[in-house]
């Protein structure tokens, strides 16, 4: 029994970290209707940033987030201006290839600048918390809390603030929103930059857990795609739900069936969801953007 509890708890905690990483992706998808294939590389860059800050100033990544999140916002804005925005009114494939090219470019630029060495930060909290036979890593618990806080804050922002209302209006009907005086291009820019900033936050949460190297994004970006689809594309609480689902499923199937099946399982689920509920488990018919258009 304690094994089961351990597996479920570990799955929930790691899943929430996956979720945090996926929220930016789902936000960008929900509003701009594009998939950012360079999402994993954004994560990689932000992890390097947090790592560099910890090396230069001895700050832990949770503190480094104060600098990384705005820096990634800026980075996202620049990428939007240079790569995404020029491709937006072209056929859909253009933006797919543009972000893919960006992903390859960033990976190789990182390889040149940082070499392929794996970089780490020293452990922040020495030992795990133990509750009887259950071990919980403090960094993972923190990650969980940050994810919950972030989801709640984002939901509040989307529902209550002017910016949030403008985003929802843009999602519902871009042209009508524009006629009502909402600067849609700027909303796009802010959303893309905001999504990137969220990846920055995820990177700060992940650096104590994972090494950073130029291709680290590849290990996570597929998981992020699965989560976004599972949770309902564009839905923020869906991402949280999807992340935890993937985490727990990975954990249980790896233990009870075989470690090599951990990934197989959630990709099968991914396929099933695509076939039977293409709007995601929490998605609504015809609206890929539950979190934003209630």
């Amino acid at each position: 029994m304690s094994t089961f509890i351990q597996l479920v708890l570990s799955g929930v905690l790691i899943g929430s970290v996956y979720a945090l990483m996926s929220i930016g992706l789902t936000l960008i998808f929900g509003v701009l209707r594009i998939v950012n294939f360079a999402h994993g590389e954004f994560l990689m860059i932000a992890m390097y940033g947090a790592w560099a800050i910890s090396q230069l100033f001895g700050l832990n990544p949770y503190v480094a987030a104060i600098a990384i999140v705005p820096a990634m916002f800026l980075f996202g804005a620049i990428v939007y201006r240079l790569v995404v925005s020029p491709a937006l009114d072209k056929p859909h494939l253009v933006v797919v290839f543009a972000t893919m090219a960006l992903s390859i470019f960033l990976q190789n630029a990182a390889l040149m600048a940082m070499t392929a060495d794996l970089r780490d930060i020293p452990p922040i909290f020495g030992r795990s918390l133990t509750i009887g036979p259950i071990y919980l890593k403090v960094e993972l618990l923190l990650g969980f809390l940050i994810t919950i806080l972030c989801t709640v804050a984002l939901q509040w922002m989307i529902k209550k603030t002017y910016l949030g209302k403008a985003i929802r209006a843009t999602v519902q009907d871009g042209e009508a929103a524009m006629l009502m005086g909402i600067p849609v291009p700027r909303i796009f820019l802010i959303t893309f930059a905001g999504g990137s900033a969220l990846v920055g936050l995820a990177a700060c949460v992940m650096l104590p857990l994972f090494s950073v190297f130029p291709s680290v994004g590849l290990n996570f970006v597929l998981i992020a795609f699965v989560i976004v689809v599972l949770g309902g594309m564009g839905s923020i609480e869906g991402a949280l739900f999807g992340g935890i689902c993937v985490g727990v499923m990975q954990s249980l199937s790896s233990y009870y069936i075989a470690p090599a099946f951990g990934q197989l399982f959630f990709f099968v689920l991914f396929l099933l969801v695509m076939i039977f509920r293409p709007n995601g488990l929490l998605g609504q018919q015809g609206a890929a953007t539950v979190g934003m258009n209630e």
Partner: protein
Amino acid sequence: MRRLLRLSTMFASLLLATTMSAGAQEPIKIGVLLPFTGPLAKNGIENWEAMQIAREMINERGGVNGRKIEYLQGDATTPNAAISETERLITKEGIKITTGSFASPIAIAVSQAAERNGAFHWETTGAAEIITRRGFKYTFQVGAPARKYGQAAVDFVFDDLAKRLKKPVTDLKIALLWENRAFGKSVGDGIRAYSQTKGIKLAYDEGYDQTATDMTPIVQKLKDVTPDILIAISFPNDAILFQRKAKELDFNVNAFVGVSAGYSSPDLRDSIGDSVVGIFVADFPPKVNANVLKPEVKKVAEEFYKRYEAKLKRAPAGHAAAGFSAIWALFTEVLPKAKTFQPDELREIALKLDLPEGSLVNGSGIKFTNFDWADDPKDAGQNLRASIGVWQWTKAGNEEVYPPSLATSEAAMVPLPKWSNR
């Protein structure tokens, strides 16, 4: 006017000099296929640096029979890229000799493309058995085949660890964990078969995906098994994740034997610090007892280690030392005997090589075969004298501990202290 005349005379003589010297010693061009980018780039680049040092050293000595060595790089990130890069080098650049390629999947692809285009492939480190099992004519695998890694690990358990743990081998609980791609699976298969012949049944035997991001289920399963010894085959990132998770969940073993790639990588130490001390690694030896080396090889080895450490600020890992060893053997044992540098001629020279152990910097010898393994009549071009040993991470770096002939030190820290005492 006079100035112009002088200048043009100078220019003309310079031109003459370069063309003459170029005619006298046209460089020998070798295609180096390694993963320079992508997920395997880390080890690929370390191999490249080791090979560069070999090239510099040989060129400083006047090259091979007066001809300098020149490398052409091919970025073999994935098997597909490896094939197209190899073909590019052979068909567009006219390369007749290829080498590389660090990882098994890359080696499989490169050797295939080289064979198809009639080029001579000198594989330095790729280990998968299939590299030499396809009946190819021009592929020579200087490094050890995958089964040898596993055998070294199992032999070490039998000959050394069991005594230190004061248990008969049959009472030892041995667990095997492997990443499920070409290398991990190949080594894992070898260990399973070899321990069976020794009358051992593994207490745990499972593969996992190399890109796994959460090791909790695996560690939890191993905790249920409570093995005495864990043999693990991983790449750097997953080895680090595993060790961290083992610490987090307080999973302890009496001895930990990692196999190659992940466990031999300096990144492991950079990442988990002194927690690495005490872990054994079955791999190409990064450095062997200098007494086993031939005197002239000893000098080459010293120079290589010095240059590598000066260049990369750390000692070479086993695969980098193996990359150097193999390419140095090509420069000093194969190419000097060649006249036409055609693949058929190089093949004949390679097949005639008979170098005892201690002839290569990492303690290996060279004797290729067409026919050695009983179960495998087509295993052509496999080096029977490739040495694989076991070394141990220490506070200062690493020490070769097995087999005794190559050892620089004795195995220590058996049983391994629990995480709470590390």
